[in-house]
């Protein structure tokens, strides 16, 4: 193997997408840094809480951010699925896969932060709060999607089946959410005296509202950056696979 071949031509060429990705990555990083500052320093502490609960309330911003990221991811995956089924362009299926992966990440983040926040607030790690319930079920659906894809070898079948499943999954989510909402209104809250439906019962001030806004923007940017990066990687992956199949 001649080394001149190796250095003479770059394996990966830089182009428009690389610039866009760099900008997006920097924006996402800036957004997350801004969020850290806003959540930990800028936002006023909740006036009606104290001690551990007051500090833990700040988790709420990350929790909302992750929630928003997961929601955005899910919507993008739905678009990707439908557009793939109509156009049969594999690029759209890669959009679905990338956004499901990032969405799973955000979903895990939402559940994790939700549980960690719940413990000092309601003295239990878990509450069947409709939002938390829906995110958890959604998470299970996403993971199933990824496992499903893993078990299918043919690229086109994988894309088709994945898209069909993603479509069904998305349609079930609103129904899961409403069922969870109705479930709780007539069932007495078993754990503690707190109303698990409430937002954790802290007085919302303007700095808090702004921080939530920052959280949503930051996680939106983060989701976009991660998803685009992963999407491009999936394109490369397929290119490599096709080349490999041709040469062997």
């Amino acid at each position, binding site marked *: 193997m001649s080394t001149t071949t190796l250095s003479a031509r770059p394996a990966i060429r830089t182009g428009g997408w690389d610039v866009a990705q760099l900008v997006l990555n920097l924006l996402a990083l800036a957004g997350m840094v801004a969020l850290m500052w806003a959540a930990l320093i800028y936002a006023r502490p909740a006036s009606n809480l104290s001690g551990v609960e007051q500090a*833990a309330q*700040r*988790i709420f911003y*990350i929790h909302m951010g*992750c929630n928003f990221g997961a929601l955005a991811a899910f919507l993008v995956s739905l678009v990707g699925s439908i557009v793939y089924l109509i156009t049969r362009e594999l690029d759209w299926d890669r959009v679905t896969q990338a956004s499901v992966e990032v969405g799973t990440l955000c979903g895990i983040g939402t559940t*994790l932060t939700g549980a960690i926040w719940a413990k000092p607030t309601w003295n239990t790690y878990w509450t069947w709060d409709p939002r938390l319930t829906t995110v958890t079920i959604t998470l299970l659906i996403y993971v199933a999607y990824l496992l499903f894809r893993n078990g299918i070898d043919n690229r086109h079948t994988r894309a088709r089946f994945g898209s069909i499943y993603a479509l069904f999954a998305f349609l079930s989510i609103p129904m899961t959410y409403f069922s969870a909402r109705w479930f709780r209104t007539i069932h007495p809250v078993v754990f503690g005296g707190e109303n698990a439906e409430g937002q954790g019962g802290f007085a919302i001030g303007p700095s808090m509202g702004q921080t939530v806004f920052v959280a949503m923007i930051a996680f939106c940017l983060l989701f976009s950056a*991660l998803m685009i990066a992963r999407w491009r990687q999936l394109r490369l992956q397929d*290119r490599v696979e096709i*080349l490999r199949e041709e040469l062997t």
Partner: protein
Amino acid sequence: MTFLAAAFIGVWVLVTGYLIFMSQRQRQLEQEMRTLEELLAERNKAGRRA
């Protein structure tokens, strides 16, 4: 306080973990791409010579 730290650190671990996963995969793919392109170039050269 520990709860706050745990939550923030947890989320960052998730993001960082994914970034590590992606960069490892990227390195793998780029290496394989280089190998395959070399193979392709050699095949072309052999084809032209023949």
